[in-house]
């Protein structure tokens, strides 16, 4: 039965028994019994990364109830689980852990790739730098359940397919660790187009004569007009204007320009958008936080934009008391992207700054814990920059 170390012993015993009359039938019945037991009691590992995990939980809930198939006891440790349902996107950083999980599971173990992300990368097929395009590039997959996310019934159908596959196991085709997909990762969309163009040229030469002949015997041939769907017409509606919340932008601007005259306003209708020079970036934010007349007490977010020749640090503040918002921009040039941290003013900015460092490469002076937050330490380059190139991980979108 090819199970762990005991496989050669079971094969020898089966070979001996086969010789006796009716021995083959006995070994087959034992194999059938064991395969039936394995098929009807699959304990899934509690593993789910993204949206498909919700549909897997729905399959486990009262309405679809996969306990009917004997799949009830979802085990938390890989030691007691014999089925991994790859529910959700597999990311490079999670790849290591997924392989360790798979290796920790005892021998007859099965994998269901659920949803487009686990089959082929799905919505993150193009331009995603950290998504592994398909679970079978890491661990051998037995059943693919397509959909995004697939219905719980589709997952149950996948489990039934897996049960059929297990029931066929025996000494003739024992369970063994399958092989993973090693073909290099190319864009099937453009490949299909290229192959088709070659086919087309061949077809054109062959049909050269037939087409000329067709044009001769019915010169005035009018191709039938395809009928277009009649799309409903709706009239365009003007949105009703809504007066902005809290302190109006003008009052805000005057208050700030009292303290910091060198602030320029970028053209933005409803939300005040200030461009802040680099030297008084932190003490402007310090002033905004301290000044309780303005009441800007919540840091919405701190992020950056790569304008190809320079970076822009964005700081969005919100007042929970009155509801008005204030956006700040601070220009950082590309050569040495370095700016002071504001995590001592707004504690929440610590993670936002780590994200900006991780994805843009802008360092923050005296930041308590300047580490990458999302990607591995050795990820080449900073992905959200416009000039980020990594042909090994990323396929550019062809259209």
């Amino acid at each position: 039965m090819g199970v762990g170390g005991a496989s050669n012993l079971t094969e020898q015993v089966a070979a001996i028994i086969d010789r006796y009359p009716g021995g083959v039938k006995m070994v087959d019945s034992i194999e059938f019994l064991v395969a039936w037991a394995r098929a009807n009691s699959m304990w899934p590992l509690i593993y789910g990364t993204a949206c498909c995990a919700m549909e897997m939980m729905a399959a486990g809930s009262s309405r679809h109830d996969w306990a009917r198939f004997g799949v009830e006891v979802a085990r938390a440790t890989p030691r007691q689980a014999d089925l991994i349902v790859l529910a959700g996107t597999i990311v490079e950083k999670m790849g290591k852990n997924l392989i360790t999980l798979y290796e920790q599971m005892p021998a007859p173990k099965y994998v269901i790739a659920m949803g487009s992300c686990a089959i082929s990368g799905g919505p993150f097929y193009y331009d995603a730098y950290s998504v592994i395009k398909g679970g079978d590039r890491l661990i051998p997959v037995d059943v693919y359940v397509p959909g995004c996310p697939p219905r719980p019934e589709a997952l149950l159908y996948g489990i039934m397919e897996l049960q059929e596959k297990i029931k066929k196991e025996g000494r003739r085709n024992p369970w063994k660790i399958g092989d993973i997909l090693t073909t290099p990762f190319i864009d099937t969309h453009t490949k299909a187009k290229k192959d088709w163009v070659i086919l087309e040229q061949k077809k054109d030469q062959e049909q050269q004569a037939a087409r000329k002949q067709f044009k001769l015997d019915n010169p005035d041939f009018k191709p039938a007009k395809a009928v277009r769907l009649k799309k409903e017409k709706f009239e365009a509606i003007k949105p009703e204007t809504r007066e902005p919340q809290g302190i109006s932008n003008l009052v805000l601007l005057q208050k700030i320009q009292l303290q910091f005259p060198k602030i320029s306003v970028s053209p933005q209708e409803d939300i005040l958008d200030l461009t802040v020079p680099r030297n008084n970036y932190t003490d402007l934010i310090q002033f905004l936080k301290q000044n309780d007349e303005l009441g800007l007490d919540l840091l919405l977010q701190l992020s950056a934009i790569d304008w190809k020749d320079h970076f822009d640090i964005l700081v969005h503040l919100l007042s929970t008391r009155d509801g008005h918002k204030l956006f700040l921009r601070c220009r950082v040039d590309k050569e040495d992207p370095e700016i002071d941290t504001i995590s001592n003013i707004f504690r929440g900015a610590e993670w936002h700054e780590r994200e900006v460092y991780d994805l843009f490469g802008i360092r923050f002076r005296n930041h308590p814990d300047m580490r990458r937050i999302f990607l591995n330490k050795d990820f080449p380059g900073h992905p959200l920059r416009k000039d980020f190139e990594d042909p090994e991980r990323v396929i550019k979108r062809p259209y």
Partner: protein
Amino acid sequence: MNLEPVNNFNPDEGGIPEGFSRTSSATKSSEEYFLNMGPQHPSTHGVLRLVLRLDGESVLGVVPHLGYVHRGLEKVAENQTYLQNIHLTDRLDYLSSHINNLGYCMAMEQALDIGIPERGEYIRVMICELQRIQSHLLWWGVSGMDLGAITTFLYGFKERELITDIFEELCGARLTMNFFRPGGSFADVTDGFIPRIKQVIEIMHKALDEYNTLLTGNIIFQERTKNIGILSKETALSYGCSGAVLRASGVSYDVRKNDPYSIYDRFEFDVPIGSIGDCFDRYCLKIEEMAQSVRILEQAVQTFPEGPYRSQQKAVYKLPKGSYYSQVETARGLLGTYIVAEGGPKPYRVKFRSPSFSNLNILNELAVGHKLADIVTILATLDFVVPDLDR
């Protein structure tokens, strides 16, 4: 693509895993050790890795490690057209996918000055409130299961399936809807929509009482959640929390009330505020939010107007040059969508201000001093979704 294991720390030579301060807050006691609540763990709601510094069973420090489902969604959004990005916002916080779509579509409508007819506004409010109830039901079930009451998970999902049916009948998908478009939605409401909502309303009244007797009133649950993970007002604001986490600490900020979008100002509903800011307050707040959403649905069902459900839609949207920002109240907090447009069919930069990112930031503040089991309670009541966190 390297797949060797990360070089983990070596405790014998006094190594400290990354992110921890060298000296531990407690006295250098011998029992101090590091426990890895790994990316695959039943109570981390997906793939979030926590490294805990423990002394026996009480927690000295927590360092969350993110990025285990970081899919680079913002880079993908930069290379897709505006319409194609709508279905990406479903996968941000997939438990409130309608509300994410709404946030993104509102930013586009703000840029292109598109208005929505009366019926379209009503559809939006009703669907977003249904989505909020559906997300809270799943949260309630999973937090009950994290604390050991497995039956609450099944009860929560029982009611949730009713709302999933409404969405399936409406737009054909159960979880990732892609239903809203700038100017309304891509199709009108089916005739089974209103009767099903009425059925959900009356079932939710019974269900909420049942949940309160089963879990909220339970003495064991109250012992496990009262005075655990107390979040002060200043810390919440300083970390930028939003949603039930912020309101439980006493700050009354709900985007639907303080910065009303769509037609939320026509419905009267109140925003519950917590007092202490512990786990029990956050829990009761969410149950109360469900009741308020049901209240909004009741009002909306009575005055559901006829007429066109959307304004004119284009095939390709080209937003004029500039930056546009819109914020909505998802089930987890304030989701801000910031689009920088260059005039072409594809956005130049899309930034999602995710509520779970800031809500989880406070874990270290809340967890220090509590037991290992309280970490699970705090994680359950913080109610974050990891793909919304990692984007």
